[in-house]
């Protein structure tokens, strides 16, 4: 759990050009200065890092199954996707 959090924070921090320690878990991507293209890059980096597929369509960001409203929701979304993947692999 801790490492997922750390990895997501690292990805977001790199995109926002900030230190990991400066990122508030409640912050939105927008408040960190990450625009829509930056968000697409963050999602790509998360997919690459965890080998998961994040359900996200930039045309309808609010309608996706993945909650992008804060760093905290992104982390729990990633955790959920990793658990689902583990279930599929085990099953």
């Amino acid at each position, binding site marked *: 759990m801790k490492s997922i959090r750390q990895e997501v924070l690292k990805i977001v921090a790199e995109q926002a050009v900030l230190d990991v320690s400066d990122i508030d878990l409640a912050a939105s991507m927008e408040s960190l200065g990450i625009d829509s*293209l930056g968000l697409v*890059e963050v*999602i*790509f980096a998360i*997919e690459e890092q965890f080998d998961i*597929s994040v359900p996200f369509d930039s045309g309808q960001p609010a309608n996706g199954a993945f909650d992008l409203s804060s760093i905290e929701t992104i982390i729990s979304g990633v955790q959920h996707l990793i658990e689902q993947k583990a279930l599929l692999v085990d099953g």
Partner: protein
Amino acid sequence: MKRVVITGQGTINALGENVPDTLAGFREGRLGIGPLSFPDVERLTVRIGGQINGFRAEDHFSRHEISFYDRFTQLALFAAREAISQSGLIFADALAESSGVVLGTAGGGLQTQDENYRAVYEQGKNRVHPFVVPRLMNNAAASHLSIVHNLRGPSFTVASACASSNHAMGQAFNLVRSGQAPVMITGGSESMLCFGGIKAWEGLRVMSRDACRPFSANRNGMVQGEGAAIFVFEDYDRARARNADILAEVAGFAMTSDASDIVMPSKQGAARAMSGALRDAGMASADVGYINAHGTGTIANDKTECAAIAEVFGADADGLMISSTKSMHGHLIGGTGAVELLAAIMALREGVIAPTIGYQRADPDCALDVVPNTARDAKVTAVLSNAFAFGGLNAVLALRAI
């Protein structure tokens, strides 16, 4: 109609990372072609090219910029800095509103395509970086140039294979000449030196494995190069009014189509393009002292081009110098006419004719003065620069000293 002049030039290619180093290479007859270096080169039969060594994107662009810039865009932006800085222009207000950029490229973001096809087909990856499309699109270099330099007027990209840059510069010329734009940034960029880029050319069997020797009886094909050259085309009156350093006048331009074969060039198409450029510039054939030839080093091109020159210039061909600088920097495909225009301008400004290097044996089918191996001092006041593309699309620029 306005007169059009060149007030800035910039480049990066196998001979140098700026104009002075490139012109020094032309004067020395320096060979910029060498062993290629990139992944899987050992699987190619053609392993030489005019590759730029030592250029590191990280030294010139931020990580964020690089995520959007394919190498062909990087090279165009790099060359444009030199050109625009030389011109002394800053694009703001009304000038920014009406100035634009027309660039030539044949392959666009081919390196990006190559890398990402590798990722999905060879490595079996199921996702690619989100910016693959904006990186690979052919207009990426022109668009980023407009963004970086605040050019808000007409901008687009021309793709006509090996004539792309000449076609692009012809469009820029006409935009300034007609008064639609006071200033146009123009030229071309190409970066095809990757496994897929060379492999495709290998298939055509027009590539040399040892050297590019245009017009020499023992020539055995073309050698690819990479790079960019960018120019500032400006309304003459405007340039004079601001006391700009004028490098040369773009006096005329013509384009023709062979309408015959998709790869074999036609003498008639090339000849009509040259005579059209002379007519457009109001030049007599006797006025022209130098032609920067297309001179690819293939038998088909060189024979056809020499025959076309002989037809257009008649008895005046005897006093005419022609050379192919592709022997030094390689064939930059869609960027080639732009880099070669540097040699045409050097002839007018410095009175130095760039040589055709690698020349070993006279060919009766190319019985013209090809300035073999050594640069020559000569005063010329009018020059042509030829580009003849696969697909039979020909574009010739005529320049005059000023």
